[in-house]
Each structure stands twice: as C-alpha cells, then as structure tokens.
C-alpha cells in the first residue's frame, strides 16, 4: 500500500453564482499531461438533473463496500476527449466498477484539453448534487482555469490517502473483462425497474443468474440456457435510484461468467455502466485475466508510438490502426490488451471499442502491479527453480517449478489449457488467470 496525495487547488463544489449554478470539479493528476492542462471541460449540462443523478450514483458506488473492510473513498477519474466525459470509479472493495459517460448530446460546452485526471468528490459536493432539481441549469467545469494563480496563493487542498495498488490494478483489469463481454439481454424500462424485485433480500452468498421468464426478469440460483451469471447480485441495488430513470438496460457478460456489466441507457447522451466481479468477495484487482497478454513484453517503441498516436487522436479504432500500420489483428489485440493492462486504454461496451485513457498515475506505479508476474520472473532468476521434464504430444511441455517447500508439476503449451498442482490453480482452475508457476514455465518455455 502506498501513500498517495491528491493535491487539489480547491475542493470540488456546486456553487450558486449570478450566472447560474456551477459544478466545479477540482482535478489532480500525479502524472499530468505534457503542457499541464488544468481545465479539461467547461460548459453547460443539457440535463443537469440526470447528470447529477448519475454522479450521485457514482458517489454511492465509491462509498460502498461489500467485504468487511473500512470504506476509504478514492476519488473517481474523469477522461475528457472525443466529445465525451467519462467518469470512472470503484467501490472500496474493488468488486464494483462504475462509469458515467456524458456524450456530446449531454454536454453543451468546450473541451479545453483532452486527458484523464482524478476529480475531487467530497461530501458537501455530493450533497449539493442531490439537491439539483429538474429545471435547474448547471454549468460543469472539470479542472480550474485559473489554477496557476490560485496555487500561487497557496490554497492547495491536499488530501493524503492510502491508495492501495489494487485500486489502480482494478482499473486496468476491468477493461480486459469489458473487452471480452458479449451482450446477453436487453431489458425495457419496466423490466429494468422490475429486475431488482426478483432479488432475494439481503446479501446473496451463492451464484445467481439473470434471465427473462416470460416478460419478467428473474434472478434464479441455478444456471440455465440463456441466463446471465451475476456474481454478488445484491450489489446491483446500487442502481436502485437510477433504474427507474433509464430508457433501457443492456446486460453484458463474459463467456465464462467471470464478470457482468449493466449498461443503463439514460437518454440524452447519458449512459451508466456498472460492472460486477465474479463474486462479492473478489475484487477486479485480484483477477489475473491480463497476465497472459503481459507475458511477452512489447517493444517500448510500440508502446510509446501507440501512446503518442492515441493521445493525439483521442480515439482508438483497432481495425483502422491495424490497417494503417500493417499489423496483424492478433498483434493489435495483444497490443490493446497490453496497453489496457498498463492503464492506457479503457473499453466502451456500447461502441465495442477501446478508447484512449491514460490513468492519472505514474506509469511505474502501474507497472509495479501484477505480483504474480513479478513472482514468476523472480522464479526465473534462480538457476534451477524452473526445470524442463519433457515435451509431449502436440508440444505439451511438462515442467517442474519450485514452490514453497514442494515442487509443482506444471503443464504448458499444446492445445489444452495450462495446469499446475499448486493450491491457487486447484482452487480456481484457471478462472482467475494463471498462477506464478504456470507463468514462470510459460516465460521460460513459451506459452504456445
């Protein structure tokens, strides 16, 4: 856990001025973009009431936790660019990811710069957001226009927080899940309202599956054809204030049921995404879904080039990128996964595309994540901790990898999934990514 200080020039606030209400979101990035753009967006909100509802729901997600641990508020991040504002946040436990997208229809203003930043979410501001009425116009300002002057006056609002690595890691891991999701159900407004009614009361321990039974959405505790697995489904109650406001609800899930996402189309360019991890006690940060893609380190010039290109364009279309740079689709897929694991790309379910979003933290902080990969590399440092036993049919390679006082048998390569005798693999059967022993074997003898 590393201490991280949000240093805002002033707290975010919803203020009443003679020109009307202004929601000024204070911004801070540990790794600010070149040029130090301080103000990302300034302008009106087409439907301030709806945007405020979305932001208060985001605040509710930030304040929530579904495992016994203290709630520590981590400020959301906002990405400005390509005509959109995307607010992203996590629950304290890292198991719920939420994003509010304000599209061009929802915004009536000017993008002064593109980029990603932390924004201060404090209780008085959330309080004020809850008070925004339907007819009240609100101007939104992300970042400060006179930031230099104010900082010179010494009014920096510094808030030190213990920012666990898992919080940043969750932000990267969830993009991998979103990219692998498929649309499974579409619910009408009425069905969306009824969805939570079929949830049993209280905290749900087991697995639940969402399906349409006749016209009614139902949560059932048994898998069946067409049903979407929703882990820790009680977490969906975070949406209870927003569901009655949506025009429709689209449900997405990964093919292996390890994550699900609920996209509320709120109309007028407002969209709210809530993604849930496989279980309430599993944060996205603990998943190793991107470890495979990080095994092969990409050439630095590729990453730098892609980063510069995407930053300039603000958008990212993998197909076009592949065509323009004469790259094979699988290479681009790998590049996308790597960039997303490094916090450089987010994923938009609606357009089924990655979007450029450089996390507002130092890159080395992000690269320090993935302890399993780090431990696997540590195993390779010793001369005989990873030993080849033999190569079988179809390139199936048997390896012995040193564990804690035991040697593990590891099988990698070939058509079948890798396997290991360690407790992590036995418990999860690869659903939470490979263990360090498999990673070490793959690094030494190749994954394929």
């Amino acid at each position: 856990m590393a201490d991280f200080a949000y240093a805002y020039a002033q707290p975010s606030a919803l203020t009443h001025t003679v020109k009307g209400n202004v929601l000024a979101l204070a911004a801070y990035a540990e790794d600010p973009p070149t040029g130090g753009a301080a103000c990302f967006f300034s302008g009106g909100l087409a439907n301030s009431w709806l945007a405020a509802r979305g932001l208060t729901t985001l605040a509710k997600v930030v304040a929530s936790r579904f495992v016994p641990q203290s709630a520590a508020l981590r400020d959301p991040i906002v990405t400005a660019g390509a005509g959109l504002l995307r607010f992203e946040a996590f629950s304290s436990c890292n198991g719920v990811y939420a994003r509010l997208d304000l599209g061009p229809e929802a915004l009536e203003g000017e993008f002064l710069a593109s980029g990603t930043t932390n924004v201060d979410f404090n209780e008085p501001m959330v309080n004020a957001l809850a008070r925004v009425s339907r007819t009240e116009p609100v101007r939104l300002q992300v970042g400060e226009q006179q930031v230099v002057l104010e900082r010179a006056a010494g009014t920096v609002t510094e808030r030190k927080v213990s920012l666990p690595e898992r919080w940043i890691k969750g932000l990267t891991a969830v993009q991998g899940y979103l990219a692998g999701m498929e649309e499974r159900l579409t619910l009408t407004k009425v069905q969306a309202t009824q969805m939570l009614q079929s949830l049993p009361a209280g905290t749900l321990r087991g697995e639940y599956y969402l399906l349409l039974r006749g016209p009614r959405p139902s949560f059932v505790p048994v898998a069946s054809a067409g049903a979407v697995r929703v882990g820790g489904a009680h977490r969906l109650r975070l949406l209870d204030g927003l569901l009655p406001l949506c025009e429709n609800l689209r449900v997405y899930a990964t093919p292996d049921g390890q994550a699900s996402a609920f996209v509320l189309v709120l109309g007028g360019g407002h969209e709210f995404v809530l993604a849930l991890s496989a279980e309430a006690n599993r944060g996205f940060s603990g998943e190793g879904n991107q470890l495979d893609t990080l095994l092969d380190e990409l050439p630095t010039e590729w990453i730098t080039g892609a980063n510069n290109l995407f930053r300039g364009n603000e958008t990212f279309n993998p197909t076009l990128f592949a065509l323009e740079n004469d790259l094979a689709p699988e290479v681009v897929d790998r590049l996308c996964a790597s960039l997303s694991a490094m916090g450089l790309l987010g994923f938009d379910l609606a357009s089924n595309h990655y979007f450029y979003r450089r996390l507002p933290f130092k890159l080395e902080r992000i690269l320090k994540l993935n302890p399993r990969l780090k431990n696997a590399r540590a195993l390779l440092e010793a001369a005989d901790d990873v030993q080849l036993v033999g190569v079988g049919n179809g390139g199936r390679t048997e390896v012995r990898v040193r564990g804690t006082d035991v040697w593990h048998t590891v099988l990698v390569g070939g058509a079948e999934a890798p396997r290991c005798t360690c407790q992590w693999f036995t418990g999860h059967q690869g659903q939470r990514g490979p263990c360090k022993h498999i990673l070490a074997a793959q690094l030494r003898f190749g994954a394929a």
Partner: protein
Amino acid sequence: MPTTVEEFEHIIRHQSITELLPFLLALPKRDVVPVRAKLKALRKELESIVQLSENSWGSRSTREQYEALFLTGFAVYSRTDALRSLTNGWALAGNNYQTIKGLHEAWLALISAIRPDWLGDWLRHIHRNGRDWAVGYALLRTLEEEQLIPYVPEIVVKAVVQALSDWGGELSQGVSVPLDAAAAIADRFRADPLLLRRDLPLLFEFDTAVNAYSARIQLVMPFDAEGAQDANGRQLRPWQVWEQKHPIQVVSWQNVIVQLAATNHLDRADLLTRCLLALRRDFRRPLLTWFKDLFLKLEPTTEELLARQNELLELPHAMPLVANFALTQLTQLLQAPAFSPTVLLPLADSFMARPELKTSLRALIMGLLKCLKQEPAQAPTIARLLAAALPHPDGAVQERAAKGLAGLLNAAQPLLDPTETAVVVTAIQQATDLLGGPARTVLVPWLEPAVVVGGPGAAAAYAPTASFVPDISAATAIAPVADWHELLFLTGQVVQHRDPAVAERWLDGLLRLPAQLPADFAAQLKPYLVQRLPALKKASVAESTTLLAGPVNTNGHEGLAQALLLSWATGFATARVARVNLKGDYAAPGPLLSVEKQRYLCAETLLRQGHPLPLLSTPTHEPYWVAPNTLVARLLAYQAAGIPPAPADLAVALARTAHSHAASSAEALTQLPALVDIGLRELLTWFFGPADAQLPTLPSAAPQRPGAKLSVELAGALPELWAVAARTKAPLGRFPTLPAALGYDYPGVAQPLLSTCVAVPHENRHSGIGEPTRVYRYVELAWDSGTTRPAPSPLLLYAPPVGRSQRGSWEENIVMAEDLPFFGSLLPHNPAPVHEHALRNGAWTDKLETAERDIVQQALRSLLPAGPVYLGASLDLLACGLVHNLAECRRLAQEVLLRAIAAGRLLPASLGEILGRQLAAEYAPVPRLSDGLTALTGIDPLTDDALTQVLEALLPELPAAPPRSTRKLLETYALVQPRTARMVPAAVRARLGEWRAVASLKPLVKQVLT
C-alpha cells in the same frame, strides 16, 4: 544529573501530568526524537495486554500513566506516528469531560503552545474511525477559536450530534435537574448563535447518528440509596425507588428542533425544505426515517406542502421509505385546488410501476380518482398516470388502476378525446402480459383477443410422467481419465471434497491407470499430500517415508479420499481406508457412510492386489447412472479375474443402474448367460426385465437370519441385494415375499417406504420481573419411519433414518452439508432416504441457522438433475424449501419446482397436501409461500396448471379458521386458476364456502366461486 529521557521516564513511572506538562512545554527540539523513542518503548511496556494474575489479563499502566503517555504523544509524535499511534482520542470526548477534566486542560495548554500542524488531520482520522464518540463540541470550538484547527464541517457535525447527550449528562450532574429539561437544552442552543446558524444545520448535510442520540436527564442516584416496599407489599430495588422519585427525562433531537422552530430561533420553512432535501440523499434507513419524522412533527400546512411540491416531486424515485412518504404527501395535495396532477406526469414512469410501493400507490390512485370527480378536465392526465401503474406487480394496485381506467373509458360522457383514448388503449395492450387476473378481467374489452388467457385453447393440463428413462447416450457418457497427468490434477480437486462426479472419475482413473504412473509419482503428489500432512513440507525423503507410513487421523467422508491418497503415495504399501474414523468429531453420521467406506476399501484392496478392475458402481453416464450392459461387462471381468464382487459395491451399482433403459438392458440380458453365479444372474435377469415383472420366488432364509454385514461374501448378501434391486426398480412396489428371503422385515422392504412427518406445535413461557408472561410458540416436524431399531443390514440402502429425530450437532451439520451430494449420488433413482436424513437435521423447525440452511440448500440442489418423480421425503424437502425462512432457499426451491413441472417430476396433489398441513400447523407464515408461487405464475400454461393443482390440494388442508394472510394465497389462486381450463374442485368450494364469513376473504371467495 539525569538526562531528559531519564527525567521523562521518571515522570511517567512515578509522577503525573502535573509534572509532565511543564516538562513537555520546556522540551528542547533536540530531545524530541529520543523522548519519542522512549515513549514508544514505555507504551509497549505499559499498555500491552499481559497476564496480570491467574485469571486476569490487562495492561500494567495506571490511569495517571495512561494520561501522561497520551499527552506526550502530542508533544513528540510526527504526523505519521500520530495518525498511526494516537488512537485513544476518546479521552477528548465531551462525555468524558468531567471524568478527566485535568487531562483536557493540560492537553489544551500543550496544544496551544506546540500547535502541531497535523492536529486537524488527526481529528479527521479519528472521527472517521471512531464510530461511537466525538471530540466534545465545546473543546472543538475552543480549538477553532484558537486557530489550532480549521473549520471542518465533517468533524463539527459529529460533535454537534453528540452534544445533546453530553449536555444531558451535565444537567444530570447538578444538585437538581430542571423540570423541563428540553426547554433548558433548547435555551443552551438559543444562547449560541454560531451553533444555531452555522453548525446545527450541518445535521441535514451529513450521514450522522442524530437519530440515535438523545439526552437522558436524571439526578444521579447516591450510593446509599435504599429500596422500599410498594403499596402491594412488593420489594422495590433502590433504582426503582429512585426512578419513581426522579423520573428520567428523555429529550430527543426532534424535541429540541421543534422547540427551537416554535420560538423562531430556527427557520421553520428552512427546516421543512432541509428535511426534504436530506431525504434525497442515500443515507441510512434509520436516518431517513428520522428526517421524515421530523418533517411530520413540524406539521406542515397544505400551503407549506404546496410551496415545496418541487422538492416532494424529487422523492418518488428515492428508496421505498422515502418514496412512500412523498406519495402520501402528494396524495394529500391532490385535494388542494392549487395543485395540478399534471406535474406528476413526467415522473409517472419512475414510480407508478415501482414494485416496492404498494399501499401509497393504492392511496394515490384513489386520490386521483377523487380528483377526477372534482376536475373532469384532468381526465387525460389521470388516465396516463393510471396506465403507468398497470405493469405494477401488485394485484391490488393493478386492479385499482384498471378499474379507474375502465371507468374513464366507459364514461357515459366521453372524458377522453379519440387520440387520448388510443394512447391509453395502447398502454393497456402493452401491459397485457403483466396483468393479473382481476385487472385482466376488468380490462378485457380493451385487450387484444389473441392474448386473453383463460380460453380453453390456451390452457394446458399438467400430469406427472409415468416412467423415467435415464439418458444413456454418447452425449452423457463420462469420459474416463485419459492419462497420468489428468489423474494428477484431478487429485487436487478430489482433496477439496466438493464434487462426487470428480471423486468417481478419480477412483476409476486410479484403478485403471496404475501402469501409466511415472516413477516419481509420489513426489508429484506431494503438493496435495502436504495439505493433509504439512509436516511433509520440510521432511527429507526418509522422514517423508516414515510420516506416510505412520498414523494419520482421517475422519468422515472427506477422510476416505484422503486415506486413499495417502495410501497411494506409499504405493499402497500402507493400507489406510479401513482406519478412517466415521464417528469422530469431524464426521457427520450418514446412513450411507459405511457403504461408501466399503467401496473405497474395495478400491484400495484392488489396488493393493494389483487388479486393474473398475468398481462396479463407477458411473458411466452423467450424472451418476451405470449402463446395464456395462455393469454386466464389469461383472464378467471380475468373474474372469476370479475376484468376487463386493456386496457394498454391487448394491450401489444396482441403485445407480439405468434398468429402465430398454436398449442397454436388452444388451445386458444377452450378456447375462455368461455369468456363472446363478443367484446374481437370476437377480439381474429380473432387474433388467419388464418393469411390471413379478418378483420370482426366492429361497427362504434360515429363521433368525441376521442382516448381512458389509464384509460378507456375495452369496450371503444376495437377499439384501434383492431388496436394493426391488426398491430401485419399483420405489412404490410391494414385495411381500422379500421378508421371507431376508429372514426379517424392515420399513422399505416389503412395503414402500412411507415415513410420516407431523407438525407438532410447542410453546415456551417466559416472564421477567414485573413483566407479563410471554408465550413463544414454534412448530417442530416430528418424523416417524415406523421403527426405532436400526436397519438389520447396512446394505439396505433405502432404509430410513430411525427415531423421532436425529438432530446433529452444529459441527456435524456443517460436515453433513458437504457430504450430502456424495450420499445423494449413490441413490439417483430414489434419494428420499437421504432427503429425509437432511430434513431431520436441517429443517426440524423453522428459522434454523446457517449450517442447517446449507443442508437444505444442498439437498434441494440434488433435486435438480433429471430423474424420476419426486417421492416421499423428496416432496417434503421441496415443501420445506418453498416455505423456508431464508429467501435464497425459497428461490432455489421455486427453481426446483419449475424444473420438476417442466420434466413431469412433480406430484402436485401430494405437494399441495404437505404444504397445506405445514401452513395449517403454522410451521411457516403463509406469505412465504404465496409470494413465491405468485412470482411463478404466468410463465407458461403448463406451469399455471400445475400450480393450480398444488393450490387445489393445499387449500382444503387449511382449517376453517384460516391462518393469517390466507388472503394472499387465495389471491394467487384467483390469479392462476382462470388461466387454466380447470374447474374449481368441490373440496376447494367447500373450504371457500366456510371462509366466506371471513371479511378479508369474502371478495376473493366471491371472485373465485363466480
């Protein structure tokens, strides 16, 4: 001359804060670090919890030392140290002021002199982490006035909340207490304008515990107060006498705020608005209730409500508590001439169909209809609002909206123009699928004819399937373990003891692949072995051999696979399965546990002898079926190897065999002549023969023949194997000749197993001193299997659990929940005895705990895979699941019910009777069942018909004086019955006729019977 550190230590050990304060104030900067180190050492020494005497644990520090250590921290700690170590901030709480006044004063003097720049952060930190206390409000104000901390509303509000009880405590400390304590406290607020104007309004901004705080004012009772006798001669304790003389005055925050508003010290209009704004927040439910109650206590007038209609209109999409409140207020406004229901229209979709809002919506609809009478011009608006309520899942809301719409559309003088009418009719038709029976009946003229359910063509008749044939095909065939590596990785899953199918494949792999094991297989097993024997981790090869050959405790079902694994690791040189303890602390007694042990023992024996033969009972097809032809082929393989089949293994094999699969049975019959054992051949010939084949004449047993033991030879166990085969083939069959062949009779042998379950009401009476007697009523399920003696032979797999009850301990029940899937897998044709065992332990009464709930859930899951019609205890299990107190169990049972209906496995009349008896005995409240069944209606005609049949068997079982909430059950019946082609049966008519006299049921009875 002592050093500074030595002087500090001396003060801490022998003096007090009186000497410490000047020391700290004069502490040179260069000595701060050494004193800090000493402070840490002293705190570790004095504040650590240690054993003080034989039965006493605590810290060694005195109160003076504690105060001194606390104070020193503020003088020498860095920011990091302070946030990490200064956790005893409660010393500064307002309610501790009198107790440690000296510490407060010293602390303030120190802080004023040192002015640590981290004080504000520290206060914020301890306020976030400390739930039940806050720094005293007065102290906080002093710190702010001295500019020691900035104004932080988040901290101030917590102190304000607590100030009320602090002041109550202060008032109680005097020689007398004011007669009107609320007024005295309100005066204190009035005297502090900053508190009134700046800090008190913060209560409406933050999530605080204001709802839980109050001031309790009562003169402190002296130590020598005496008791007395009351007028009835009853001895009263001293505190009772004191309470009579000096009654406690309880002053809540609401009392104070209302008083301040009454005297215009708080702006009433502002308070009303703030309450409504606070209700928009995602606060805790009790806090929202507090704001709601405060609003109501202020008794807003209609004008005040009208002035805040915009704020009220923001609330119906909030949580149900708030939405219901807002709708009630808006319903009141409907009668105000200045209020137009048009303002509700843009929000209608947000709340008119919200499932959690029922009563308030019904009231709102009634209000709208009244409004319509007064203002017919509002008809288009009201029609749209009513149409928006049609998708609501509550039947009464739907019905009222439907009746309102029908009245509007049928009005003699049209209230809607054609365009409006078309909009409303379209809305009605869009909601068709969601309409319940009563609403549907009312709106029939506007529904599209094709979707009107209830016509004979739309209905379907449910009937249970007559016979069940397991799927024995390539699609369900279980692939054997392919190679050593698969066996190795399967071992990890077997050790986890979760899936019987994995365990069966592993056993089969072990028996088939000994020739494929690599030389170092034992070393490769080590990661799994260390989970059971952690000592192996650091052991050398020689030590490992000794450890593996030595004694290891293995218990219960889980221990069977562990024992076999340990045995395998020694190359089966050390036999272990026989030593598995089935009756230890961590083993749940199960009826089939000894049979399972015998199977594992068979496997170990085969492996030790080096025979590559599979167990006869290894499933060939999912989930646990054995193909008949494979069983015979395996028996022939045993015959060829000269090894007699083990009776326990064969008994389980018979219970798993898909005897009704015609093709496979026919093939098995063609192979049977090769079987030398005549007795077994005769048994299998009958078993694979026609379903209605009579039991052949069996040789009579010797008089007083004891039941076969598990270790007996095949010939000695043949009568018991006949009993297993017979009950597998015909669970409800009668076999009067079997007792003669066995030499004894037992429940489930000659006659089908029919354990009975009776709901027995109990009550406990409890009366406290001076309290009326309270009666606690509960119902227990008492099981009777017709015998109290255990089964003569463990090979009688279908023998019922015995005795009235076999409630296991908490630990046993935890283990049992894990073992149940394994036991259920042994009897796929008729798992009723396993389910009875589960029910006796997991559902002997309502509202049991988590271990019991897990048993019920596991047992319910065993009902999901394809199988024959549920019989006996399996139906009882389903019934218990449907009325279980835990919603998750009910949801699982509902899913089982739906799948049973789809697969024709349900006997609706039997289930209805069981449920009826349980509800009649008040084993569980009616709404648990009715709510669940209502959610299952309208899925498809077959389900509706089956549910109707269940209810038609259930209703006559209820008594003439219906249990509470029977109306809900009747509503479900009224909803689902018209969707079927069934007539209301005579028994139901008779019962409903009796209920006609009950006011709450009368309209429903009328609706059903007409």
